[in-house]
């Protein structure tokens, strides 16, 4: 069974040969081809090369176009900083929307307008062309609160929730419109799945999450589904207090970070939700051994039940030993169904 068929079957509840394996690699994939991370973020050919090499070498079922959180914000005109060996980053003290009034004049950038989003689309097309028959090709968009934080400055956005709720709604609406447009182009370019990263959602607690963030995540996810796309929701950090609402979004895949117990996610999201995760990327994946990693995965799998895809809680750290990364797919392959 080819990886793509395995994952698609699995998502539809049809028989598969063994568990799928879809961990996030970015800096790790870049290291596989000895490139600078700066180039991985800015040159789609390097990103594609790193992803393909990594997936083939370690037996992953997919490739992914994520590199850093600053793609959309950069195209909106936000000041960003490039580093040779770190992800592209927003310059927070020069945030684009430091002055809230600027939101009114902000235009949704064209995802095919030659900017950083376009580079992401080109990566997707190239991946589709080279491995799209065999592997799942996954695109990426920022979620509402993550992208709003990029545009406004995360420290400021946190206080906006108390100071100016209507501004936050306006900003989230703008973001969802932009991300849907970006997602549509990625689906057109061949994305099988759209990943949604909404890191800052783990910081605001259940009340603000449900009142302010969840409705926009819902718009984004339902919008992508109505375009015929599939979704993978990833919220970095501790999501324990928002698992129930997250489940109500019915993302195709919920990719859980390591700080929330996956058994609790299963209880709160119901038996049908596909869960992915959630080994601690540092203490288990990087600092463990193949034996301990396989044991931890078995425990995750037990707690998550059948509707489970192998992965770590977040990005695999760059300095993880190869045998540890290989242990992920080894476990997946050992669980024949």
């Amino acid at each position, binding site marked *: 069974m080819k990886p793509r068929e395995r994952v698609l079957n699995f998502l539809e509840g049809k028989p598969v040969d063994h568990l799928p394996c879809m961990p996030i690699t970015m800096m790790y994939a870049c290291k596989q081809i000895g490139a600078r991370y700066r180039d991985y973020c800015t040159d789609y050919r390097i990103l594609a090369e790193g992803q393909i090499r990594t997936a083939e070498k370690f037996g992953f079922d997919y490739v992914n176009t994520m590199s850093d959180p600053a793609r959309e914000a950069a195209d909106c005109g936000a000041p960003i900083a490039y580093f040779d060996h*770190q992800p592209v*980053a927003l310059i*927070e*003290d020069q945030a684009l929307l430091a002055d809230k009034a600027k939101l009114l004049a902000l235009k949704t950038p064209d995802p095919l307008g030659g900017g950083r989003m376009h580079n992401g689309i080109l990566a997707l097309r190239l991946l589709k062309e080279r491995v799209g028959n065999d592997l799942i090709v996954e695109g990426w968009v920022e979620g509402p609160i993550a992208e709003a934080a990029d545009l406004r400055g*995360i*420290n400021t956005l*946190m*206080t906006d*929730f*108390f100071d100016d709720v209507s501004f936050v709604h306006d900003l989230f609406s703008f973001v969802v419109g932009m991300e849907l447009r970006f997602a549509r182009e990625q689906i057109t370019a061949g994305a099988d799945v759209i990943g949604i990263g909404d890191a800052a959602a783990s*910081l*605001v*607690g259940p009340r*603000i999450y449900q009142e302010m963030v969840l409705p926009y995540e819902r718009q984004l996810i339902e919008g992508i589904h109505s375009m015929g796309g599939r979704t993978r929701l990833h919220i970095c950090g501790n999501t324990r*207090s928002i698992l129930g609402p997250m489940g109500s979004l019915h993302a195709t895949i919920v990719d859980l970070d390591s700080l929330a117990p996956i058994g609790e996610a299963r209880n709160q999201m119901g038996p049908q939700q596909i869960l992915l995760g959630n080994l601690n990327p*540092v203490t288990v994946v*990087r600092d463990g051994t193949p034996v301990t990693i396989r044991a931890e995965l078995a425990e995750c799998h037990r707690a998550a039940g059948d509707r489970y895809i192998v992965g770590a809680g977040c990005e695999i*750290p*760059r*300095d993880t030993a190869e045998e540890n990364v290989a242990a992920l797919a080894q476990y997946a392959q050992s669980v024949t169904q």
Partner: protein
Amino acid sequence: MPDPKPLYDAVLTGNAQEAKALTQQALDEGVDPLVLVNESMVPAMDEVGRRFQANEYFVPELLISARAMKAALDLIRPLLASRGNQPVGRVAIGTVKGDLHDIGKNLVASLLEGGGFEVIDLGVNVPPEQFIATVKDRQANIVAMSALLTTTMPAMKTTIEALKQAGVRDQVKVLVGGAPITQKFADEIGADGYSENAVGAVALAKQAIKA
């Protein structure tokens, strides 16, 4: 002695305007500014920290409470200075080189200010040389470093080594923190103190300069 509760509540609920107004009122009535700090603001921030640990408060609440405390502090600081009150100590704080996470660092900086320290905030991605320059040029006696990435934790060690090389390690206490940091790590790299949260950071800093 005024009722400490209203100012306490204003800080606890993150109402900066109210905190400022109450502080101004108390000062106009001749209340000792240190009483406001010690009886209202510090206990309020302790409670904020407790609620954060207990998952009753989250980052937005932390930040608005810190902001309310700062608003009150802005009125108090010049009075203390004009009275000749020295700051408890002078802290050079920053997120280490390669690391851009600053929410936790900002909170620690605010609370240290609330605790009577003069805080020199060096921002994020701070190279060792900048910590050293601040110690030398501005006589900081505490260096406080934050790191959120496993990959940037070693920069704390590098900074401590650099402080030694520059001959200023003995003039300062080095405090470290951030989600992946542990007491064990702090001991290994030769830091003088570690705290897992911002409220603990103030107690730690006070202890450090006494020692």
